[in-house]
């Protein structure tokens, strides 16, 4: 089957699925949410559907996978079919099982990194906006200096120094991305700290932590949630790229980026197996982007 035909079939199929999913969702959900579900564009329905599927696969990996993550179960580079629906990899491990475990490892590590970047970046950003003065100046100029270096280049520099392991990978990427989160949350919070209710809370004698947690965060949630989605995509793509380059998550751990790297030689023989992990990465980022796009559109529409 040639590539264009496959693509068209894939698009039609996924839109049909999304349509059914949206119809089902607006049937099941209680009325207030059902309206939202009914009015969402097909792309967003598709996105939500894919995200749910990924979370399901990641959580249920040991049940769904026919073989263990690191077990050598056959000859190298077996073709598709038989006991191994997607063949075997460079060392004779089951491709399908590794793809399924990859959902857990790759997505899990990217998610943990994003959460870490967000906790650090958002708290520092809001704190800087709240306190202002020299603290704000020092933090902001420091972040400006770090942001003047392209993020992948800076990550590579840090990985050279601290070495490449999963832990340093998470810490380095989280640190680099926290600067971006800081920038956004500071500017969002700056619009909020001038409000009267913040003044009122300050006069009541509330502490900084209370102000961040109870007064600012709830009001900054909508833009921050959208930013979380976008940031997750960036982190996910960065980690996958680094793993692809051999500098991120390393074998034997099943990871989509390094699986592409490991099996890339198959491409030259016209075998599409290495595209599967790459496609799995692409599909999830597209899905998250579709949902974020819809959310941003909704947020801007409601404001007008």
């Amino acid at each position, binding site marked *: 089957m040639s590539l264009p035909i496959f693509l068209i079939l894939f698009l039609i199929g996924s839109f049909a699925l999304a349509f059914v999913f949206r119809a089902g969702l607006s049937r099941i959900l209680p009325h207030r949410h059902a309206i939202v579900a009914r009015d969402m564009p097909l792309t967003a329905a598709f996105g939500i559907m894919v995200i749910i599927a990924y979370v399901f696969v990641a959580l249920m990996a040991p049940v769904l996978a026919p073989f263990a993550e690191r077990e050598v179960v056959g000859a190298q580079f077996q073709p598709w079919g038989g006991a191994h629906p997607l063949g075997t990899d460079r060392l004779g491990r089951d491709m399908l099982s590794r793809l399924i475990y990859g959902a857990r490892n790759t997505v899990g590590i990217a998610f943990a990194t994003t959460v870490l970047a967000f906790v650090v970046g958002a708290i520092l950003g809001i704190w800087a906006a709240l306190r202002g003065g020299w603290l704000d100046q020092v933090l902001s100029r420091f972040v400006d200096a770090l942001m003047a*270096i392209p993020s992948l280049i800076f990550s590579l520099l840090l990985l050279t120094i601290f070495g490449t392991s999963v832990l340093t990978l998470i810490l380095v990427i989280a640190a680099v991305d926290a600067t971006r989160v800081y920038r956004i949350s500071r500017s969002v919070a700056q619009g909020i700290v001038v409000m009267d209710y913040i003044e009122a809370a300050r006069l009541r004698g509330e502490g900084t932590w209370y102000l961040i947690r109870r007064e600012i965060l709830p009001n900054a949630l909508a833009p921050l949630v959208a930013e979380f989605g976008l940031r997750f995509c960036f982190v996910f793509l960065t980690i996958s790229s680094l793993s692809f380059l051999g500098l991120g998550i390393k074998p034997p751990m099943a990871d989509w980026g390094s699986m592409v790297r490991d099996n890339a030689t198959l*491409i030259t023989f016209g075998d599409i197996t290495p595209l599967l992990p790459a496609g799995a990465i692409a599909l999830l*980022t597209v899905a998250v982007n579709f949902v974020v796009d819809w959310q941003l559109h909704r947020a801007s529409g409601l404001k007008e």
Partner: protein
Amino acid sequence: MHAVLIMIAQRLALGALTLIVVSIVIFSATELLPGDLASAILGQSATPETLAALRAQLGLNDPAPVRYWAWLTGALQGDFGVSLATRRPIADMIEQRLGNTLFLALYAAALAVPLALVLGILAALWRNSIFDRVANAGALSAISFPEFFIAYILVLWLAQTGYFPSMVRLTPVTSFPDKLYMSFLPALTLTLVVTAHMMRMTRAAIINLMAQPYIEMARLKGASPLRIVLRHALPNALAPIINVIALNLAYLITGVVVVEVVFVYPGLGQLMVDSVAKRDIAVVQAIALIFASAYVLLNLTADVLSTLTNPRLMKRG
């Protein structure tokens, strides 16, 4: 005219300051090394005598500001010191590759910028049409794809059929048309990645302006939609569009790293990845400095250019 010169001088000074800060950040990276450079090079084989000898040789006994100054002035004259892994001068390793990487980035830019502008203007012109929706969804997808995914699809599609080579072997004697032909797939990959973003921003910038009263006026006096977009909206949208173009050219700098590895393209990105794996901090620092400077300079150029297209921005201070 005078105000313009002052503005440019101000931006240049700010750019120079940014470059100095960036170089300090990159230099301080070695200060974060557990132990120091000498023990990093010698590793397990270090004895107190060899360590002391190497420290003296590398000038590690000087205080950090002195070493920074030596490193920076050396780099400005094209002397980046020697590689820790191969002990060859870094300048020799970089020289050829820098040209190759610049060639690839310019090639991709030459394809991507006109394509993105045309697609963006058309999408704005036919807003909410099928074309607009397909272009938008396509662009959003292309932004979300990892570079290696696009690269391997192109390899499977265009290199398997034998139209283009999937590996790039450049020698100093390769002729220019051959170079264009051999680097077509990496350039196309980069083009697809950056076009999407530029197109979306161009469309957004023009659509933003279409709600302005003077566009309404142009429409009422009977100007054609194409003329409205090209003559009335585009000149005013130039500032944001220039910014987006610069941002994406800067993005090419990072995109180049992955694409070079996929196509075995002999450029700086590949050298950087190899050096990170070998933990050759001297080479990584040199390349990081080059990439970061290019990034800062591009942003600076965009800032100056977009201010020039829109005199109102000068008042911004």
